[in-house]
């Protein structure tokens, strides 16, 4: 499977500490690895494409009792080819979870997260909403430090999924409505190391930091 920054959509999370723990749990038990990567506007068509896939799946789930057969059907072959890891993660979850309602709830959550991500990446004002002073206040806050520590812990303990290098990109909405949320940015580690993209990726990260989080110290993030 080809893995590049553009084709490999893995990890998304708008995360509070509680959600960070859930993500950690996900990695440890490898059961619910619904992860997308969130970057910028270029991701929009992919997110919207995934939105269609998950919506259709939700629609079919509400009419079908054989949910594993459903996702194994030929209809989802494109999803399987385009996003094999996502497909596998969804299938695993379907296999383990027998209650249709829970599966529908899961898909609803994913759909809402995608909505949220699209809202963020489609609106620059929303993406870079606050002043440096606000950033500093948030960076110094207890909540932020806890979230960040939780995320670092996830990255550190992420033994089962070494393909990912995670970096956290933090942002807050204009009215601090989502001040407990963080957005993950994932970069494919293999790509990072093997394809001499290190410089490119580093510059991308640094630009991101300049624009969004001047004080985030990427050097301290464990690879």
């Amino acid at each position, binding site marked *: 499977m080809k893995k590049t920054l553009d084709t490999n959509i893995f990890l998304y999370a*708008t*995360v*509070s500490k*509680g*959600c960070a723990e*859930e993500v950690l749990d996900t990695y440890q038990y490898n059961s619910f690895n619904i992860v997308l990567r969130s970057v910028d506007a270029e991701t*929009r*068509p992919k997110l*919207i*494409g995934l*939105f*269609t*896939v998950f*919506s*259709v799946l939700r*629609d*079919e789930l509400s009419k079908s009792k054989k949910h594993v057969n459903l996702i194994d059907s*030929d*209809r*989802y*072959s*494109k*999803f399987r080819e385009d996003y094999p890891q996502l497909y596998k993660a969804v299938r695993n979850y379907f296999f383990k979870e027998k209650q249709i309602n829970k599966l529908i*709830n*899961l898909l*609803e*959550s994913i*759909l*809402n*997260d995608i*909505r*949220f991500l*699209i*809202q963020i990446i*489609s*609106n620059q004002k*929303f993406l870079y909403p606050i002043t440096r002073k606000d950033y500093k206040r948030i960076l110094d806050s207890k909540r932020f430090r806890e979230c960040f520590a939780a995320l670092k812990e996830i990255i550190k303990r992420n033994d089962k999924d070494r393909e990912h290098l995670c970096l956290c990109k933090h942002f807050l909405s204009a009215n601090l*409505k*989502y001040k407990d*949320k963080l957005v993950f940015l994932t970069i494919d580690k293999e790509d990072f190391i093997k394809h001499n993209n290190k410089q490119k990726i580093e510059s991308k990260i640094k630009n991101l930091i300049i624009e969004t989080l001047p004080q985030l110290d990427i050097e301290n993030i464990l690879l």
Partner: protein
Amino acid sequence: MTTQTILVYQAIPESYKLFTQLVHDSVDRCYKNRRTKKVIYGEVIKDFKRLIEEILAKDKISNFLIKEEKEYLNFALSVFRKSKERVSFEDYELLVQYSFESVIVRLRKIKEELIDKIKYNKLEVSDIDNEYFFALENILQQVETLDDYFKNKNWTERKDKNEMIKKALLVFKNLNELVLSIAFKDTDSISYISNSILNFDNIQFNIKNKLVS
């Protein structure tokens, strides 16, 4: 961007754009006189009557209208026939209500047909269809949110009533723009419409609770 057929256009009849245009013009372009409490349409009422008659005549041949659209047209025709240039605010409210209902039912129908076509195509759809599907899902979710909101409000309270009308008209504006975009095959506008649906300030999705699942 793929060069696939755009499925959403197959889910809407060609003549439907006349209806959409009528709904758009009859609801959006009005002016309320504060003293007489009447909505002033002016000379354009004659055009509306002519347009309604034209749509109904086309429907007799191709039968493209759904029940709610016919109800809207019949009501609108009766209102415009009895008025020269202005319409009472009560009639205008009913006109909005009828058109709102007809547009929602049509959008649900388009969404259902689009889902069927997407399934038939094994999820291989164009970016444009994905955009439309995204907008359709969101606007319909917004309508449901609005519906829940209305249940907790009191129409007899003036403050509540004004707020509800304002929200309904804002949602209606998005609904209508979406239908217009489909009917007129205006693909350039779709991402803008999607964004404006998502960024609708007055009715936020309950993201916070749903995110942390």
